[in-house]
């Protein structure tokens, strides 16, 4: 693949922006969590693009993929805790709408 690094970064930026949009727009907690996963994937793509950009000829730079591996791990932990919170919210309110959970609002 001989795609310039900028194109990978633009793809990552688009995914990040779409994820941000979903995070801000949607009221469903499940979709908000899915948007966060999109944002983390965009970050991973950026790491890989940077790693590829700084690779020597014939040998890939491996620091980017290792960092992306840790990002995937954090995403897995975040999804697990987030979905447990969704279940707790559903128990309390019988809904997964974010505006139903406004008790801490000042």
């Amino acid at each position, binding site marked *: *693949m*001989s*795609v310039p690094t*900028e*194109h*990978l970064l*633009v*793809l*990552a*930026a*688009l*995914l990040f*922006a*779409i*994820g*941000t*949009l979903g995070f*801000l*727009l*949607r*009221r*469903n907690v*499940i*979709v908000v969590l*899915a*948007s966060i996963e*999109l944002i983390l*994937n965009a970050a991973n*793509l950026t790491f*890989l693009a940077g*790693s*590829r950009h*700084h*690779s*020597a*000829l*014939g*040998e*890939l730079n*491996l620091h980017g*993929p*290792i960092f*992306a*591996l840790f990002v*995937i791990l954090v995403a*897995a*932990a975040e*999804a697990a*805790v987030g*979905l*447990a*919170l*969704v*279940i*707790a919210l559903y*128990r*309390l309110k*019988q809904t*997964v709408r974010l*505006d139903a959970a406004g008790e801490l609002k000042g």
Partner: protein
Amino acid sequence: MADLLFYVLAALAVAAALGVVMSRNPLFSVLSLLGSFFCLASIYLLAGFQFLAATQLLVYAGAIMVLFLFVIMLLNLGDETQYVERPESLGKRRVAIAGGTAVALLLVAVFSVGLRPTQAAETASAADPGATSFAPTPVFQDEAIDDLVKVGELLFSRYVLAFEAASLLLLATMIAVILLAKRQRGDVREAAGWPWQKGVEQ
């Protein structure tokens, strides 16, 4: 050929990402997310990051997606169309659209300004001072792939502290999830929310 495949996959990934945000049904949202993950894994594969492509498929498409679908099925979350959007949230929606677009434009602008030249380009320009300091964007023709042995060596030497911290994080996550999702006995609201447990719990 691989380039064309990249652009097709990128378009599909963006379309799937839009599907995540646009669709009314959370089930379709999560399935679109799965499609986006598959496209990204294919892009990783094209770029030569085989290990990360496999990890992406195993952890994201395998584990996290199943978790999402499990919660949707467990809570029986159907259509979102039954909810009426409150009028006050329309202003917030405009602010959110403006903010998201601004973030998109900012990121595209930052990334399209240009990148630092690679080490190879730097040494080349150092050897030949007369050359222009603005090296052209490197084009990758080599078909390098990642070396799994080297990934493992790095993970257990240079990144060993992060690796151990990750294990602690996973343990903490496990305990937190068990505590959060555990049924609390005698909770009245819970009994109201889960009618089939009445009589069993009380």
